[in-house]
């Protein structure tokens, strides 16, 4: 029985109306492609040509942008597009077997669309649900959490029955906040606008001084002094200044920004508004990662409520000239866009390739305007600093690392979720609080961070000891740390933007070597080559992605060497393939299968 392909709302899109809604602005290209794909499932070449013509861009340029982002499809995909989150924590919860089960039930191969065009099933980088995995994305819009065999079986039935996704069981889409330990940021949020009013009362020089006194450093990983960044941007010449909130929370194992945007969106927007007032910005942008698309409507509602309350728009809080509004840009699956200059390129509708710096965004950022890019958590912290003052914030934590830090705890522990501590907290304390037992290792700060083994659990979270962007993945003694590193290596190769030689080729070479070791063909020479690649990539890449891509490799080889040596077949050279298997074609052609035609039987 033929049914119209209406289950996912696919209709012939009115591309003209879509382009008009975006004012035919080429800088809106990524948003236009997103919305176009949401209407028709994928992006056929004629559609790209129509977009190119409507925006005054070349087809090759539009094709290049579409081909950059992992969530854009330039080949047909299923009416239902299922992407399993493929972080190591999802795997530890059994995601791979569940994915194989779903594929088997639906009769499709991973990464391929079935002949009936109904469904495609594939993997995606971490979806930011490590505390409630295994998780998956449906049609780049909804998320399904806490997958198990029963959910997968039922999902296969729903897809076969072409039941529209909004009619799937509501509890599947439930995303829990799991706030396990709250300090100042995760506690009861301040009233919307209260911090903004407090900042205005302090005056611009006063509030900037509070920011500097607070010693707040950016929470996205780089740790640049926030007050200094804002001062530099304020001083930078330019007719327009721009505030950007980096909500591209792509570091595997990190999900704190998801919760802040869910529970404390007003605190984030208050922080952005304070920054706008200080640097003289009228335009604010939130770069929301594509995986968090399901948060969009709620965030738009918060923005509208703020406009109605005169906390956004013209003359905010009645102050003439304080005009500021915030738009949300939704990403399309690209980890590298967490790097601020890639993020700006993406906001401008281009491929997310990191820029050459200098100039830095504070001098020349979005569309060439002086721009500050700060993490979600940094803006939240700024809100609290406006309310309570810089000295109050600086008194929390350690002298070099002021304030608190939110950790996204996942992996082998009884109580995964968010834990907020003052800087200076011991790794071991966090492990105790989350109920981790028999812990072998912790990956702090995600794959680009550091892997700590048990003898380092006395170290402390701080910029001067163990810095972190917020991920805290726990591995007990049953885990193979070689496999953990191999998973991360695949992640970096998948997410390399492809711009510079060492990252584009190096991440692929690391994957080849680790896969060779995993297949049992590894030798000591392969480990030497891995060391060589690690050393090279730390020094010569264009951006931090390539520079940190070998961190998990380096840490695990150094600290868990037996995990690697278990995979070594011999200490000497081993070919990267099975010699005897390679002879099978010759055996087939010659009709031989006698012992003399088998390599291992010769000698």
């Amino acid at each position, binding site marked *: 029985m033929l049914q119209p392909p209406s289950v996912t709302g696919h209709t012939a899109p009115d591309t003209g109306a879509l382009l008009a809604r975006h004012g035919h602005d080429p800088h809106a290209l990524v948003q236009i492609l997103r919305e176009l794909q949401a209407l028709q499932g994928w992006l056929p070449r004629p559609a790209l040509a129509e977009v190119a013509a409507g925006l005054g861009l070349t087809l*090759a340029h539009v094709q290049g942008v579409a081909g950059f982002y992992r969530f854009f499809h330039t080949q047909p995909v299923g009416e239902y597009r299922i992407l399993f989150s493929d972080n190591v924590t999802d795997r530890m919860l059994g995601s791979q077997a569940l994915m194989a089960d779903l594929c088997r039930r639906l009769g499709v191969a991973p990464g391929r669309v079935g002949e009936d065009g109904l469904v495609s099933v594939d993997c995606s980088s971490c979806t930011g649900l490590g505390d409630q995995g295994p998780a998956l994305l449906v049609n780049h819009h909804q998320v399904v959490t806490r997958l198990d065999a029963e959910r997968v079986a039922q999902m296969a039935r729903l897809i076969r029955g072409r039941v529209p996704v909004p009619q799937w069981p509501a509890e599947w889409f439930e995303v829990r906040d799991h706030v396990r330990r709250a300090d100042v940021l995760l506690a009861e949020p301040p009233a919307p606008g209260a911090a903004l009013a407090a900042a205005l009362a302090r005056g611009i020089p006063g509030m900037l001084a509070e920011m500097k006194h607070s010693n707040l450093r950016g929470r996205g990983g780089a740790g640049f002094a926030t007050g200094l960044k804002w001062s530099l941007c304020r001083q930078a010449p330019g007719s327009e200044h721009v505030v950007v909130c980096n909500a591209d929370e792509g570091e595997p194992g990190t999900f704190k920004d998801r919760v802040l945007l869910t529970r404390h969106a007003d605190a984030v927007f208050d922080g952005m508004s304070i920054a706008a007032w200080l640097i003289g910005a009228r335009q604010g942008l939130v770069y929301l990662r594509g995986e968090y698309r399901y948060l969009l409507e709620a965030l738009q509602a918060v923005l509208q409520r703020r406009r109605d309350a005169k906390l956004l728009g013209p003359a905010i809080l009645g102050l003439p000239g304080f005009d500021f509004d915030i738009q949300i840009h939704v990403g399309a699956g690209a980890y590298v866009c967490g790097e601020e200059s890639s993020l700006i390129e993406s906001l401008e509708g281009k491929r997310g390739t990191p820029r050459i710096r200098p100039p830095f965004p504070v001098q020349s950022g979005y569309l060439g305007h002086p721009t500050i890019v700060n993490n979600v958590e940094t803006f939240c912290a700024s809100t609290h600093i406006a309310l309570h003052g810089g000295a109050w914030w600086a008194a929390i934590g350690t002298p070099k690392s002021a304030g608190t830090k939110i950790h996204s705890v996942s992996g082998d522990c009884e109580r995964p979720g968010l834990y907020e501590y003052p800087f200076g907290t011991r790794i071991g304390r966090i492990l105790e609080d989350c109920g981790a037992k028999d812990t072998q290792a912790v990956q702090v700060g995600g794959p680009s961070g550091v892997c700590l083994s048990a003898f380092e659990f006395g170290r402390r979270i701080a910029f001067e000891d163990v810095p972190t962007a917020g991920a805290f993945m726990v591995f007990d003694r049953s885990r193979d740390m070689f496999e953990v590193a191999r998973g991360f290596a695949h992640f970096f190769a998948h997410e390399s933007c*492809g711009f510079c030689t060492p990252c584009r080729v190096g991440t692929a070479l690391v994957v080849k070597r680790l896969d060779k070791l995993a297949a049992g063909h590894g030798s000591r020479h392969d480990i030497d080559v891995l060391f060589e690649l690690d050393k090279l990539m730390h020094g010569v890449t264009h951006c931090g992605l390539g520079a940190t891509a070998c961190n998990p490799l380096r840490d695990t080889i150094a600290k868990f060497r037996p995990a690697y040596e278990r995979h070594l077949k011999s200490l000497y050279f081993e070919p990267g393939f099975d010699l005897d298997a390679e002879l099978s074609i010759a055996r087939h052609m010659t009709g031989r299968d006698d012992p003399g035609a088998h390599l291992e039987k010769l000698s």
Partner: protein
Amino acid sequence: MTVVEQSFSLDGEDLPFQNGDSVLQAAARVGRYIPHLCWHPDFAAHGSCRICTVKVNGRPAAACTVMATPGLDVESDTEELNAQRKTLLQMLFVEGNHFCPSCEKSGNCLLQATAYQMGMEGPHFEEFYPDRPVDASHPDILLDFNRCILCELCVRASRDVDGKNLFAIGGHGIGTRLLVNSDSGRLGDTDMALADRAASICPVGVILPKRRGFVIPIGERLYDQKSVSEQAEDRS
């Protein structure tokens, strides 16, 4: 107007520079060779090949993107940096399909010449052998993507000099590739001409004029006569 003499140190020797120079620009101007592939004196820095990576005051940086300032201490011609360059070159060789003996660009190829200069004797890594069909659709110009090193010089030349915007970059990661701008995606359906800057800018053998193969015999070509570093010295 008086020109104030400014200089920095390159491998222990003073090197004068002009305002706005990158380290690589300043070096090229006076004939000091810093190996490079994606950089070209007529175009803005790109920073993708990383072959020009030097140490500036002890820290690695691409010489094409670091601005020259007085008193910088730049190391380039060191064993460590040249070994790194050799590894980067090997990466570029295994990533594509480079068969120098049968390549029309052999002897005129910057990739090949730089590999000789850095003492590269073999690929070191396993080959990727990517599947990259050639585009022979244009009457006068052949595109052999097997040799592309993604320097984007053709993208830049076509956009910034020819005003035709015939190329773009597509894909990501190891699947990054050069795209041609036409409805079919083939060069034959563009207005590219042999006189275009983009037609002669390719440092390797991707963009080649048809019917001119081996007009200059192997052995008499640019880098057959002088090495890439000697050519750099001559150009100053």
